[in-house]
């Protein structure tokens, strides 16, 4: 089972939910009859789930993408590659061909259109994937783009491939998505069976939630909503969910204590029973939705 946790905007408590839900399931694994629990931080530009859970590093994999390399000795300066690249990653300047790997989208066009095979694709480092094992048995995976690399999508794709090969269907996979509605988010939620959208009960929260819901509709994704910091605002989010038939599967109450624990980088479920109960309900609601 693969579920994604997303939000229209950062700072709504998406990571808090992902980390606490994953930890809860890991702690209760036996009772809940779950084989393995995996938490994946797909916010590859700025992963920070790791600030909240500490574990033992099990594996590091360097991740690569393909970019062309110019082989001067093969080049006949035929000029065919001059205007092929739509991303300005290649410049033909008569005396040489320059490649700017950070702009390359790995489309292979220049490489395969070159009649002399003078632009073979070669692997270029884009980031690192790390797999940790946490005390409570949770598997935690985090991918991080190298500084200066702009294409997040290839790393997200490879991280999905990694978790799919490492864990089978029986594992409960929770994907912490980057915020927003842009390409990396689309890639992250692509094969999720359910997208859980986290929001706050304020006009800002509702506005961001609508953007996220529209995106998920476009992708034909089943979604559910969780309200964080319940109590600080109004019930417009409830109304919106009811009107649009989106299941509202949990409300995490606003508590000063929770804000404090969060600020310290601590789990909420370990210290606040009320929140542990909410997380428990969220878990069973998710199970129902994914089955049904």
């Amino acid at each position, binding site marked *: 089972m693969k579920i994604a946790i997303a939000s*229209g905007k950062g700072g709504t408590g998406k990571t808090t939910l992902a980390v606490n839900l994953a930890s809860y399931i890991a702690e209760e694994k036996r009772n809940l009859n779950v084989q393995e629990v995996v938490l994946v931080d797909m916010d590859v530009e700025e992963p920070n789930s790791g*600030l909240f859970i500490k574990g033992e590093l099990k594996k590091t994999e360097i991740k690569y993408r393909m970019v062309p390399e110019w082989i001067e000795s093969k080049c006949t300066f035929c000029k065919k590659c001059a205007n092929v690249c739509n991303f300005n990653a290649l410049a033909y300047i008569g005396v040489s061909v320059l490649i700017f790997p950070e702009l390359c989208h790995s489309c292979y066009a220049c490489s395969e259109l070159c009649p002399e095979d003078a632009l073979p694709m070669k692997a270029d480092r884009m980031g690192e994937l790390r797999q940790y094992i946490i005390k409570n048995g949770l598997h935690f995976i985090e991918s991080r783009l190298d500084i200066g690399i702009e294409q997040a999508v290839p790393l997200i794709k490879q991280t999905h491939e990694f978790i799919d090969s490492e864990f089978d269907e029986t594992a409960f996979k929770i994907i912490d998505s980057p915020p927003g509605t842009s390409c990396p988010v*689309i890639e992250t939620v692509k094969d999720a069976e359910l997208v859980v959208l986290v929001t706050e009960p304020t006009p800002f929260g509702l506005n961001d939630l609508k953007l996220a819901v529209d995106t998920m509709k476009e992708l034909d994704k089943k979604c559910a909503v969780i309200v964080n910091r319940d109590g600080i605002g109004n019930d417009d989010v409830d109304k919106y969910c009811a009107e649009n038939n989106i299941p509202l599967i949990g409300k995490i109450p606003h508590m000063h204590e929770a804000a404090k624990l969060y600020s310290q980088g601590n789990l909420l479920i370990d210290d606040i029973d009320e929140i542990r109960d909410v997380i428990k309900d969220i878990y069973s609601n998710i199970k129902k939705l994914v089955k049904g």
Partner: protein
Amino acid sequence: MKEIVVISGKGGTGKTSITASLAVLGDKDVVLADCDVDAADMHLLLNPDFAHKEKFYSGKIAEIIQDDCIKCGKCKDVCRFDAVPVINEQYVIDELNCEGCEYCAYVCPTNAIVMNDNLAGDFFISETRLNNTLVHAKLAIAADNSGKLVTKVRTEAKKIAEENDIPYLIVDGSPGIGCPVVASVTGSNLVVIVTEPTVSGLHDMSRVAELIRKFGIKSVCLINKADINADITIQIKKFLDKYEIPLIAEIPYDLVFADAILAGKTVVEYSNGEVSQIIRDSWKRILEIVRE
């Protein structure tokens, strides 16, 4: 004209509320730009009239002219982005996947593939209820937020400020530390970093501060919810000292932020309490520093 950009890293720190409050305090002396094009919220507080609206295009997207297609399948073979599915025995483009590389168009034997401009969002120039100008935008679903739309918003806002002799441009910067935020700060006169004393707040603000330093832009910092975690507030201060970033305000944790949003107002309009006073003082400090 001086350009002041407010940023915060990941979000949830009250950046937009504070930015909008500064705009109220600046009154007629301010043009506003909302560069949070992924999930713009400023309009919820300022009731813009969306008087000027235009489409914003960025990059390309392929289209197959079915009448010209001989179904050879070459396009599908070369596409590295799985963007050419066969539906009802027709080769078609999956717009969500198409990267716009044009490789398919190069290899199509009948020139059946045309490249269209890709709609990346909507761009607006509005009069707000405060009677100043707000330049804002909305990124299209699944669009690539490369910073282009952000640049457009800033450039247009700058032009308006210069043409009308308005002394300040206040920019609600983009979230994160990637391309959009770079596009929202380069060449500005002052960056105001809004942070909060949480492990992720500290983490984000240090990344952001390093980025700004690289560009050599003057910056100041404002700690929101400063009393939520005394230890981290001290760490933030140490960091600011080391980087020689002046701390201009510490705002205590206060639900007035949420209450003001609910009322559709900025904090300084909604209340005359402590928080509003601190924001007023901050605006004065910001003006002093930016004029130096």
